[in-house]
């Protein structure tokens, strides 16, 4: 594996590496302990989802969106449903909109819990991972009573949601919201403000605002660089414009703005904000229809739409072309993690090998969405 001039060594990191968050292969060129180049190789999880979309009908594609970002299925369902609704001009009932926000935000919390947990275990602290999983189980239980599944929900459908929430859901969600803030405090004591953890992450892999724009970085990673951009505020969909929540941005509390610690901390702050949103939505919830009247066979008019939504990992976009038949003519998926991954080669130049894990973990990429 040595190079001709024997100064550099090429090593494969992955595809089966515990901290690559899926099956990512990085071809790493090292100069001693220092990285001189990183080249990501993707495609190990390719399932041709965009092609599948061309051979199934519009409602049939919804379960496949679960398998994009499987840690945030609700958000993927939501973005796809909104795309088809825009094409068909469907008005979603208010109760369904509120239910969608509740589910999307709960899923954002559970996705960030995994980001928090897996990042900490990448950094060598295993306990927080178990803590994150413990709270996530609570949310999974909530989803399970709402839709019957714990991972691939297929709950948010074209026109609304698949069924109304059962009795007891609201009480259980409130119970979770009451219990959760204490846990966030615990995470902060346990990990966020741990001196070793901060030393390990502050000033590492700084993404400047310009770089963030150039590489198309979105989501918490963009906001960590100090740019206040959140689609829930910039292009409000559903009922987000009625809700009161803050958009946390990175301030370089422990080092430079946009370093790995800032990116990590963004997720902790966002979990607090999401919990706040869910609480407001529960108060807003009034009786009504959980879905609009949607015919069984959907035949949207010919045309094209692009709809984007704020996913836990950034901006998920669906570009859909319809030729007037029951199946999409073409569906292009803009996956946030793909753009976020593309900055790794730039960030990893000239850092120590051990920091590469910190870079991947702090970007919180997920491979099924990149490979599709």
């Amino acid at each position, binding site marked *: 594996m040595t190079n001709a001039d024997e100064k550099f060594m090429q090593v494969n990191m992955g595809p089966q590496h515990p901290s690559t968050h899926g099956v990512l292969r990085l071809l790493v060129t090292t100069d001693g302990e220092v990285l001189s180049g990183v080249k990501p190789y993707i495609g190990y999880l390719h399932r041709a989802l965009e092609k599948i979309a061309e051979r199934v009908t519009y409602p049939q594609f919804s379960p496949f969106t679960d398998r994009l970002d499987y840690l945030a299925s609700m958000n993927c369902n939501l973005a796809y449903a909104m795309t088809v609704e825009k094409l068909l001009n469907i008005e979603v009932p208010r109760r369904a909109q509120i239910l969608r926000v509740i589910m999307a935000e709960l899923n954002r919390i559970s996705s960030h819990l995994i980001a928090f947990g897996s990042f900490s275990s990448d950094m060598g602290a295993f306990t927080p991972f178990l803590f994150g999983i413990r709270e996530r189980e609570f949310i999974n239980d909530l989803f399970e009573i709402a839709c*019957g*599944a714990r991972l691939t929900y297929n709950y948010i459908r074209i026109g609304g949601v698949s069924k109304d929430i059962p009795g007891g859901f609201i009480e259980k969600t409130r119970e979770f919201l009451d219990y959760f803030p204490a846990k966030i405090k615990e995470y902060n004591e346990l990990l966020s403000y741990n001196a070793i953890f901060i030393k390990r992450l502050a000033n590492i892999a700084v993404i400047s605002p310009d770089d963030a724009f150039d590489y198309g970085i979105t989501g918490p990673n963009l906001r960590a660089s100090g740019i206040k951009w959140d689609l829930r505020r910039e292009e409000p969909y559903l009922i987000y414009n009625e809700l009161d929540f803050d958009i946390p941005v990175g301030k370089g509390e422990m080092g430079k703005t946009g370093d790995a610690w800032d990116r990590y901390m963004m997720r902790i702050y966002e979990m607090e904000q999401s919990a706040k949103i869910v609480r407001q939505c529960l108060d807003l919830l009034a009786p009504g229809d959980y879905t609009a009247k949607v015919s069984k066979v959907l035949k949207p008019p010919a045309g094209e739409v692009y709809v984007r939504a704020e996913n836990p990992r950034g901006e998920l976009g669906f570009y859909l072309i319809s030729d007037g038949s029951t199946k999409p003519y073409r569906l292009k998926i803009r996956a946030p993690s793909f753009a976020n991954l593309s900055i790794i080669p730039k960030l990893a130049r000239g850092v120590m090998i051990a920091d590469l894990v910190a870079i991947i973990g702090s970007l919180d990429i997920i491979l099924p969405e990149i490979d599709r």
Partner: protein
Amino acid sequence: MAGYFKKMYHSISTVLTGLGITIKYGINPKTEVTQQYPEVKREPPEGFRGKLFVDINICTGCTACARICPVDAITLKTVRDENKKLRPVLFDIDNARCIYCGLCVEACPVDNCLYFEKKYEFSAYSKEDLISHFGLGEVKPAESKTEDKKTEAGKEGKEAAQ
């Protein structure tokens, strides 16, 4: 020099705070969350999407479920009995293919005909054992030779509707 000790104090104190939390959970049995799975089993809630079940006696053989399935997990074959009613002679659900999306259950027009059971443990040694056979099985010799696929069954269903 003072800064050095301050830093050291800070590092040690934050690490100890973290350890304190870990120890708190370690010695308090009330905080235990792990379930001893094979011994203690969890009862899934109402509406859990487990293994699919068909009440074949009330199934009308309309093939709506097979047509909506995004992964073609349902193989259906229908024949008309002496009363000209459509009967599903072959109704196979491939549990290895099924993605438990629930579209078929929602599409079924007959109440309590096709539904999810709460079963979630059904591993098998071979792929074939994962296919559930619900069909009535009374195939006449002439028809049993041709292996009807879902599309053909769908055509038949459409003809019946006319």
